[in-house]
């Protein structure tokens, strides 16, 4: 065996080294030194992110282990995007992890988080369903433990039960679909499956594809597989919710695209294009309509993230390099906007324990900077022009329309109408903070240093990502080098 092929996995191996260092530090350092665990982890991860930006990339497609694992500029790019998100989550989580109730277990939070990130890396780079499944499970099982992290709150356990049951149920359905695919094609390599299946669809293939799509739809919380989302987001501790809502969603969306175009590309127009249309329309509409009636901020952002997942899916139906680039850019912008919103919610929850929308009445009078960050996040999520959210929505609609059929015009029209509906409920939060005449519920307080740093970074990202075209250009360059779309028919 040629051991040098492990070098193709250099990003994974570096992440594993970070994980092991954190694990060893947490296990063997004296108790007095454990207070620095957060700082050590964040610094190590910052170094890893910078290293991965500069030396983590590859020039072309590199595969290892007989094609089971593939890395390319676009894979390295999406991993870097996830790294930025994880870095912000780590900074945001610091004051929660070091609070009195959590600090005995703070090492576990970081270890579980890094393991799930490793699983997502495998999902992104896998070109074989066995490796993909291992990545999927090592991304979702530790997340269930993270959801149950808050031992003193009953809601945390309830959320963990709901998350784990639906995750196992969905992966069972996904594996059933895989077994059908295996029976039809005799292989689990994405490319071999595409080769063996031919171009003729049959009933068994349609059933298998429906199973596979619904299995991953659970992870992405697409409607009608979204029922776990709101409860889990509400029950989980806020730093876990923010991780769950951006990072795992981004990784799953990219892996979903790779599976669909690499393994089942030739059935695009015949089978799964229509399945995706139905899923996208249902996801965006139901997510929006349910978000209107939410009173709890975390549930509200859960439904908002469901509808955002629908917009991310719009990048897949285009099935071209531009759609891929638009999807990755959307994920990047979504990471910054959503983490800004969760940063404000987490800061307020840590200080006062309040998460209801009515608690935010008159917030601008007592905490103007927090209200300002929240407003920018809401504007960006809704897609109001000068902010990054507008550009990401613009690119994703353009890439979808480029495909050119009447059906996709109708699809994009429905998505556009939904953008206007979403403006209503995003502005409800802004109205509560700025216009509501009631007395402020939350006194003036000063959030901790780490929370302020994370909010500065996310707000800067929201403002700059759209205006500075360097970000979209580099993503587009990486995406145009990918030869993912060879099988589309």
């Amino acid at each position: 065996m040629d051991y040098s092929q492990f070098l193709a996995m250099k990003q994974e191996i570096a992440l594993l080294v970070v994980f092991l260092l954190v694990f060893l530090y947490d296990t063997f350092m004296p108790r007095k030194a454990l207070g620095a665990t957060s700082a050590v982890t964040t610094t190590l991860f910052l170094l890893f992110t910078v290293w991965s930006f500069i030396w983590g990339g590859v020039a072309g497609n590199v595969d290892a282990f007989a094609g089971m694992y593939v890395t390319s500029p676009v894979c390295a790019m999406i991993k870097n995007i996830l790294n930025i998100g994880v870095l912000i989550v780590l900074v945001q989580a610091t004051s929660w992890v070091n609070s009195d109730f959590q600090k005995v277990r703070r090492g576990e939070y970081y270890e579980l988080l890094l393991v799930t990130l490793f699983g997502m890396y495998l999902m992104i780079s896998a070109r074989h369903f066995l490796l993909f499944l291992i990545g999927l499970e090592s991304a979702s099982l530790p997340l269930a433990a993270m959801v149950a992290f808050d031992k003193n709150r009953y809601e945390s356990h309830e959320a963990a039960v709901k998350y784990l049951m639906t995750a196992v149920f969905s992966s069972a359905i996904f594996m059933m679909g895989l077994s059908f695919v295996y029976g039809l094609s005799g292989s689990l390599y994405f490319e071999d499956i595409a080769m063996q299946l031919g171009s003729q669809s049959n009933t068994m293939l349609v059933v298998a594809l429906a199973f596979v799509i619904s299995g991953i739809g659970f992870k992405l919380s697409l409607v009608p597989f979204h029922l776990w989302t709101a409860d889990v987001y509400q029950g989980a501790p806020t730093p876990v919710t923010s991780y769950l809502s951006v990072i795992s969603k981004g990784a799953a969306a990219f892996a979903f695209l790779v599976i669909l175009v690499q393994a089942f590309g030739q059935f695009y127009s015949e089978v799964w294009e229509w399945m995706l249309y139905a899923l996208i329309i249902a996801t965006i509409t139901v997510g929006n309509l349910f978000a209107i009636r939410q009173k709890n901020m975390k549930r509200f952002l859960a439904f908002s993230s469901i509808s955002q997942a629908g917009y991310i899916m719009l990048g897949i139906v285009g099935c071209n390099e531009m759609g891929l680039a638009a999807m990755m850019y959307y994920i990047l912008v979504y990471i910054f906007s959503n983490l800004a919103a969760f940063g404000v919610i987490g800061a307020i929850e840590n200080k006062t324990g309040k998460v209801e929308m009515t608690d935010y009445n008159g917030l601008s009078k007592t905490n103007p900077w927090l209200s300002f960050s929240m407003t920018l996040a809401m504007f960006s999520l809704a897609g109001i022009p000068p902010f990054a959210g507008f550009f990401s929505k613009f690119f994703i609609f353009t890439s979808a329309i480029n495909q050119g059929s009447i059906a996709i015009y109708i699809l994009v029209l429905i998505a556009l109408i939904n953008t206007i509906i979403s403006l209503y409920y995003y502005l409800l939060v802004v109205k509560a903070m700025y216009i509501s005449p009631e007395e402020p519920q939350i006194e003036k307080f000063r959030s901790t240093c780490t929370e302020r740093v994370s909010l500065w970074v996310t707000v800067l990202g929201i403002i700059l990502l759209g205006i500075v075209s360097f970000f979209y250009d580099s993503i587009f360059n990486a995406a145009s080098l990918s030869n993912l779309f060879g099988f589309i028919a």
Partner: protein
Amino acid sequence: MELTILWYLIPSLLMFCCGVYGFITRKNMIAMLISLELMLNAVDINFVVFNRFLFPGELEGMFFTLFAIALAAAETALAIAIIINVFRVSEKIDVDDVTKMKF
């Protein structure tokens, strides 16, 4: 009488459907976990049977089954741990009782 591939596939499909039915109808979380195990084991049978009958020269399906068994064990262990936690907090393990958060 010769045992064809259908003699294996139909029981595994029945097992899968029983698992789905049990997962949806049972109220006790442990019973739901058992139903999930039924579904996962049906998948394992499918892989082995497809491998044995359709592609006898290869071992890919068998390998997948081995890994799937390990994953199922990990899932069950974690699920039991979380269910025990719920039981400690609320003294109940029926799904009808974990309904504090609902829309």
